[in-house]
């Protein structure tokens, strides 16, 4: 009986070597499906991305090795660089907006009580709707004829007649950025809030008794202690914004005049509209390097100074 041998094993506590080896294999067996998926759908494509970037790779036909030509071409590709500049511009606007709004919201909902719990849920609800749904919703709201923003502004006397906010760059850009803040602020609110709640109340109490004002306590206790969650929120917001695609594709279709084409959008066009897969792969590799560098730089800038000394 297997049960019997098990008991005798654990009582005698002499694990025979064969049994140990079998347990080794069991552990690996349980991990195997995860490992296969990661290898096939992540590591191989990652290697292929780099390999493809050295080729002229059409959808139909034979790929041709061209060495660094794709990268050389990329160097002079103004449409890629303008996409990168636009993506950085959007990342700055979205990150500042998101973290600013999230910070205020986090301060508002860090307490307890049923009303606060309700506010927290309300602010968080747009997060779970998904970027495609939120973008489709915003495409309707921003539409000049059937939407809400333009007619409302006209009825309130803010504008003379209907203004098409998606027709020119500045209002279109801010409309999308505000959508992203509306949709994602709740997410960063929760991250920052978990940091605020981790601050021991004793600290605040002690400072209050010592006569520190609200502003002083905020500057010298709250801010230094939420450095870590804030760093996490910053990294996630920057990475997420650098990879933006859905909202610019769905709401603006890259317009007006292709001014809102992000880097991922550019890769999408190159690989899946023009079917220059090799060049698309080269752009992907550059994007990957940019993001890795950004993450490292941010981690370094926001490292805990306490760990250093």
């Amino acid at each position, binding site marked *: 009986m297997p*049960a019997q041998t*098990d008991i005798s094993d*654990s009582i005698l506590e002499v694990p025979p070597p064969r049994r140990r080896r079998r347990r*080794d294999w*069991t*552990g690996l067996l349980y*991990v195997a*499906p*995860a*490992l296969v*998926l*990661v290898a096939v*759908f*992540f590591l191989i*494509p990652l290697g*292929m991305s780099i390999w*493809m970037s050295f080729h002229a790779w059409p959808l139909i036909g034979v790929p041709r090795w061209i060495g660094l030509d794709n990268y050389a071409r990329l160097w002079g590709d103004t449409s890629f660089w303008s996409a990168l500049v636009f993506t950085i511009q959007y990342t700055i606007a979205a990150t500042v907006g998101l973290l600013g709004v999230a910070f205020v*919201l986090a301060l*508002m909902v860090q307490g307890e*009580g*049923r*009303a606060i719990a*309700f*506010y927290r*849920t*309300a*602010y968080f*609800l747009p997060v*779970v*709707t998904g*970027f*495609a*749904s939120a973008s*489709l*919703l915003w495409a*309707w*709201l921003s539409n000049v004829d*059937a*939407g*809400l923003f333009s007619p409302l502004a006209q009825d309130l006397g803010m504008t003379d007649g209907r203004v098409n906010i998606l027709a020119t760059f500045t209002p279109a850009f801010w409309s999308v950025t505000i959508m992203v803040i*509306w949709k994602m602020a709740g*997410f960063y609110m*929760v*991250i920052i809030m*978990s940091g605020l709640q981790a601050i021991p109340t004793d600290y605040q109490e002690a400072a209050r008794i010592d006569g520190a004002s609200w502003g002083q306590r905020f500057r010298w206790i709250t801010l230094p202690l939420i450095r870590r969650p804030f760093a996490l929120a910053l990294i996630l917001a920057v990475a997420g914004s650098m990879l933006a*695609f*859905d909202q610019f594709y769905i709401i603006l*279709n890259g317009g007006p005049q292709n001014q809102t084409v992000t880097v*991922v959008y550019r*890769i*999408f066009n190159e*690989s*899946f509209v023009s079917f220059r*897969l090799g060049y*698309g*792969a080269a752009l992907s*590799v550059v994007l*990957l390097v940019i993001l*890795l560098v950004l*993450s490292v730089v941010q981690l370094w800038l926001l490292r805990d100074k306490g760990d250093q000394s």
Partner: protein
Amino acid sequence: MTATTIVGQDAAAPPRGGGRIKYHRWIFHIAAALVAILFLAPIFWVVAAGFRLPSEALQPLPPWPTEGFSFDSYVRLENYGQSILHYTMNSAIVSVGTALLTIGVAVPAGYSFSRYHFPLKGLVFVLILSTIMIPFQSILTPLFLLLAKMGLQNTLLGLILIYTTLQLPFSVFMMRNAFDAVPKEIEEAARIDGVKGIRMLVQVMGRLVLPGIVTVGLFAFLNAWNEFLAALVLLTDQDKFTLPVLMTAVRYGRYGSVDWGAVQAGVTIMMIPCLILFLILQRSYIRGLTAGAVK
């Protein structure tokens, strides 16, 4: 409901709070409630606007029905390709499939990382987790070719496999921690009772890490339900479209005119399951979010 809780809070406050504090509290609650309305309004508008009569749908304001309730927008959505039910099923198959496969793969992996020893264990764990650092957008081009080679292009199964892989770093990490939190004594006791192998995992441990499983499944479902870019690239056959891809086609319209009523109805269909799941499983969701944040 909020009104009563506000009153309840005031009653619970120290009686000697003074007029000024009470005054501040009211200002806070009014401001917080206004912000809540701001965040909820777009969701309310799009759901309400989808039920307007066709005659009302042509006027932008107000974005809710005034002359009666109508399912007309939903009926018109039937005219895009197959019926909307077909595309909802596609989305449901992909999302439920991703959730189940993620659980099926991440639970044994998390169990193994928590309890077993095998060669290169640490390296394998770091390898699986580190994929979160690499944006999947940068491997989309080769994925497209790879799926074609495997005969999985234009299949929902291909999408499920990719979505599951993207869920793995979070899910394996989550499950490893869940198993770590289970005391070893429980397992020892079960082993003495003769339980072992896969039965141990399913019958004894499964129940103890259920909250972790729910969190992993919930995130997998929601992310698969909402994913857009991979679905847009990998599904070219209209019969296979998931809801976000279909609705983007609806949003660009036909013959130069856009049926915004249909867009509103579609957005509602896409949003409602997410909102309901979140409201029911809020605890599991926040647990996943903060667990991810610790990492």
